């Protein structure tokens, strides 16, 4: 459903079926819609069987990395010697992304069911759902839903009388983007500062509290009950030609479109369809200028690239960007690209955890250089300086926050150089005060 709009014919409504329906929030309402069948089925299956089913479905991580989910689950030790943990990443801080919010607000039990099945499949008895601190409404809805699930036997010491123990603990974040990184999230849950950890050791070996851990995104986990209910083959069939990208994806479109919102599409849907058909194209009298397809950490696409791209993991890479979290930010011809890139750089500079030198200093310096350019004091040398900085910030750090800051800068200079030149040459009025 293109919530808050009615579903578009080109959408494939699976996860978003009950967005906007208050009845779906409650346990009884959810069961009426067919909920918790998959969990009942799962606790009667073996761990391996569930993992194989998810592997066969081709489900890939929906938080941005696109790692095959079944494969990730299979990294967990086969024998449970130390406690296993599942962590659900509900931090949703990637700029432009607001899909997990909807899943939690409208269909909390979908997430609970998915977490429970996944926890069972990886041999965990406890799942932590890490919800970003700013999500006060999803927090309230999820808290009530988890209580209901315990009360109705969907969670607890013996889920649906099966003798299997599964519990969910909700944990609130406190306003740091970096806590959405899986190892930083584990540190945060442990009560430490949200600094990413070095890998190895990998979470499946030593993660939360040093125990084998799997971290999955909300959307990924919400898809799991559907896979168990309708079968891996069905999920795999939701695919428009590229067998490596299957299933549906919630796309959060924001910016200069007629109908911003969340849209659920089959993997491989042309981006054109999303931009023009589902979202209605640019506002009246405007033309698209630039699209960031996957949350601000991926390279900016030109309109030509976006119109040629198929919306799946490989299709967007082919056109020079990445699917990421599918937080699509659309900018039309009134947009000041330099200003937007500065705004993004400022975000990353604010959120850097300060561990790695390149990120801590590089994001701040990049921001200052862009500020100087916007204040009319830019120089030709600044291009090389920004690109040098971006190269230093790529591939040399513990996590990819600094790479994420570099991506819009590099793609911005590559594809919108004239806008930078205008500020530097003085032919464009400065928009920031000089410091």
């Amino acid at each position: 459903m293109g919530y808050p709009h009615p579903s578009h014919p080109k959408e494939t409504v699976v996860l978003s079926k009950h967005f906007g329906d208050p009845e779906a929030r409650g346990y009884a309402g959810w069961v009426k819609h067919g909920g918790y069948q998959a969990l009942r089925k799962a606790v009667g299956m073996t761990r391996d069987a569930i993992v194989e089913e998810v592997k066969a479905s081709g489900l890939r991580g929906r938080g941005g990395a696109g790692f095959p989910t079944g494969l990730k689950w299979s990294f967990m030790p086969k024998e449970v010697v130390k406690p296993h943990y599942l962590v659900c990443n509900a931090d949703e801080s990637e700029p432009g992304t607001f899909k997990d919010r909807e899943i939690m607000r409208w269909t909390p039990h979908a997430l609970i069911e998915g977490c429970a099945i996944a926890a069972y499949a990886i041999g965990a008895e406890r799942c932590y759902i890490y919800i970003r601190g700013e999500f006060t409404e999803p927090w309230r809805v999820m808290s009530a839903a988890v209580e209901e699930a315990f009360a109705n036997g969907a969670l607890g010491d013996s889920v649906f009388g099966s003798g299997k123990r599964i519990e969910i603990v909700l944990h609130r974040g406190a306003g740091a983007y970096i806590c959405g990184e899986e190892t930083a999230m584990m540190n945060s849950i442990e009560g430490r500062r949200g600094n990413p950890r070095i890998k190895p050791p990998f979470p499946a070996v030593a993660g939360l509290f040093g125990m084998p851990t799997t971290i999955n995104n909300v959307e990924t986990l919400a898809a799991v009950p559907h896979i168990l209910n309708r079968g891996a083959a069905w999920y795999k069939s939701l695919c428009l030609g590229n067998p490596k990208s299957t299933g549906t994806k919630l796309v959060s479109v924001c910016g200069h479109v007629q109908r911003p919102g969340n849209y659920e599409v089959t993997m491989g849907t042309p981006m054109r369809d999303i931009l023009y058909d589902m979202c209605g194209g640019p506002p009246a009298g405007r033309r698209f200028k630039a699209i960031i397809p996957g949350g601000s950490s991926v390279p900016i696409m030109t309109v030509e690239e976006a119109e040629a791209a198929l919306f799946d993991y490989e299709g967007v890479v082919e056109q020079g960007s990445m699917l990421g979290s599918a937080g699509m930010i659309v900018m039309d011809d009134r947009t000041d690209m330099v200003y937007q890139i500065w705004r993004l750089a400022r975000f990353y500079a604010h959120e850097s955890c300060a561990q790695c030198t390149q990120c801590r200093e590089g994001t701040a310096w990049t921001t200052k250089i862009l500020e100087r350019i916007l204040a009319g004091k830019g120089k030709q040398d600044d291009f090389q300086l920004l690109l040098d900085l971006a190269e230093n910030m790529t591939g040399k750090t513990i996590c990819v926050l600094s790479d994420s800051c570099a991506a819009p800068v590099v793609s911005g200079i590559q594809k919108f150089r004239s806008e930078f030149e205008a500020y530097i040459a003085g032919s464009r009025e400065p928009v920031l005060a000089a410091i």
Partner: protein
Amino acid sequence: MADELVNVTIDGMQLAVPKGTPIIEAAKQAGLLVPHYCYHPSLPSPAVCRMCLVEVEKAPKLMPACVTAVAEGQVVHVNSPTAKKAREGVLELLLINHPLDCPICDQSGECELQNYTFQEGRSATRYQEYAKRYNPVEDFGPDVLYVPNRCILCTRCVRFMEDVADTPVLNVSERGDRAYIGIAEQQRLDHPWAGNVVDLCPVGSLLSKDFLHKARAWDLDKTASVCPGCTQGCNISIDTRDEIVVRIRPRANLEVNRHFICDYGRMNYRWLNRGDRVEAPLVRDGARHLATDWDTALDRLGQVVRGASGGAVILASGRASTESLGLARAMLDRFQVTAAVQVPLGDEAPLAGIPGLALRRERAPNLVGARLLGYTAQWEAALRAVTDAGLVVLLDADLGPDDEAALAAARGMVVVLATVMPEARNAELILPVTTMAEENGTYVNRDRRVQRYQQAKAQPGMARPVWWVAGEVIAGPGPDASAPSTAAEAFAQLGERWPVFAGLSHEEIGYTGRVLGEMAAGAGVAR
């Protein structure tokens, strides 16, 4: 069981190192230093500074050498153009928010940021943005100042306090380039081992108030020594400028103190600089003492030693060297000797993260050495023996009023070897001797490790080491070859009388010391 060895090639050099060794340690074995900041062999490694990134063939990205273990057949390039460029990048980024404080910064001359920038950093900055961050200097506690502007956030101090000192009072506060090291509210850095954060800090961000603006690093003479604070025997470096001790720093010894010393040892050096020393040998002449030359004084001492009868008492400082204690004892061979060494007591202060390392209660660095040579710590008993002894020898012990009273009541001869002028009216001789900073010698620590300390400053006046005085008396007047002329020779003589020291030489003891074997029967027992 031997460690499994792994073959790697680092910058063209073939090495075989134990499995699990990080590349940075393997490189050390090849004599190659991989530039780094946050890594430290005594701290857990977080790989945050990104300075040690090296090129590993077949790896997709540059790998941090401090946490990447060696693998069979690995080929590593520390100084390839890619790795050097990455390091140049890190240095440039560290400097953009670093103040140009070198002219007024204590760390100048021993600063790792200066060193690596000079070695492979850019020669000019490209930073032309507005002012660098500014935060006022903070007082963290008894001795430590924190200068946030200079901090490169390597987090060594945070990890030391949390993991080694087990007192997590420091943390990283704030995010991004606004980050700084914060201290817990209402807490001070008063842990007994907290001074080590100043040494750990690679730049001039954490400073010692005691050393603030005292001396430039390049003006200092640095001497390998052993801490005279307690029986732990931590290895130190005595830093002097113009023959004055200005600083004590730890010296690495993986067997004893790893890389750390306690604040008691660090701050306890001012007694080495005292100016009120005995300047010349003094011989009693009636009611007064007359300064004289060493030949006269040694002759007189020899007469006293040969002339006295009955028992002898030696009252020695706990800081006396093994050579000095041993030769002083040998000098009184024909007597029935009661020998005691002074051991002040204090509180123990362990360093939680390093088993076996603590500031010990017994604040005498050579207590074990003294015991092996037949001294006891029974100070009171020795004082009581003073009254009836035929000869009392004072080896630079600190005298309280009771000690002075006991000495004054001595019926026999009193000979004083001292650094600082004592209250000893009835002494036959008062001979000037050296402090441990003014001589070579050894101490035996509580784990029976004999360690050498070296002369850090010149002997003032006519002071001589105690072992030299005793050695000359034993040898007698005249051109006699048997008087030891160096501490090494004095040490070599100990083995003849005390088998526990037999066969050991200063050269073998080296800079890391040697643990003594089991005591032979009868050795080190008071006669």
